[in-house]
């Protein structure tokens, strides 16, 4: 499988899903014109990664420690909903890895984004680290 990297635009975040480097980050503004279209490619990659982890488990008995970092400085309501769907999908990786953590970073002062992280942490069964980015 290939790593998945998207550069940031003024409405979409930088996305790094790099299983080779074990680096998973979503950073920037999330208010895409077509949220469904934007997130579909991410969901497809996670599906492939799930199969890849399953293969690693079975073939080489390797289990990874995974941390997905979110540092969003603006999220529209539609992107927020898809972010939740993304987190739900990540939850499915849990049995296939040694540990899975969400690192939720927010800009200093941005208590709304901090609240989003707190809300999500109660909605999925994944440990969250929620902290100010600065």
């Amino acid at each position: 499988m290939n790593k998945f990297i998207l550069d940031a635009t003024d409405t979409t975040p930088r996305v790094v899903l790099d299983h080779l480097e074990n680096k998973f980050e979503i950073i920037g503004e999330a208010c895409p014109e077509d949220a469904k279209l934007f997130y579909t490619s991410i969901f497809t990659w996670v599906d492939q990664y799930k199969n890849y982890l399953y293969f690693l488990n079975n073939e080489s008995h390797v289990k990874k420690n995974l941390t997905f970092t979110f540092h969003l400085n603006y999220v529209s309501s539609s992107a927020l909903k898809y972010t939740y769907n993304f987190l739900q999908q990540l939850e499915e990786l849990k049995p296939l890895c040694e540990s899975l953590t969400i690192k939720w970073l927010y800009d200093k002062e941005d208590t709304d984004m901090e609240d989003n992280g707190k809300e999500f942490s109660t909605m999925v069964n994944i440990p969250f680290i929620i902290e100010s980015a600065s």
Partner: protein
Amino acid sequence: MNYLFSYSGPISFTVKRQLLRNIKSNTEAVTKSVLIQKRIRYVFDEILSNVYEYYIQQNFPNETTGIDGYLKPNNTLEFILISAISEADEEVFKNYLNQINALDEKGLKELHKKKLKENNAQTANAGIGLISIRIKTANPILYEFKKNKTVNSVVLKIVLNLKDE
């Protein structure tokens, strides 16, 4: 009136994108608070996006939308939205606004969570946006329905406190 922005006309994809870009740069002139800047942008973005999506759904491409934002002496920003609405949707929309206006912060957060969990992204999005606006502004969303010869309209008034918490 001390207008921060004022627009009247149809909402096309291009207009929506340009208005959102304008508001992003305008907010820095209003407040130094990053949180409040983002809230101004969020309210504007959500109401505009909801109207845009609704007009596509209803096939209202040429209907005029008015959106004004003006600064009040009491350190608040008032958003006034005038948008077309089909008569069939008035009651549902009114009931939904009454429901979220009646909720306290805890109730709004519970409803927000419930809407996030809903499977139908299309119907849930508009609901999530309005709930978030209620949470971020801590003020009720005031509304009024108007009838005229060609199309009915709804006027929304949203008041955002510009003082940082």
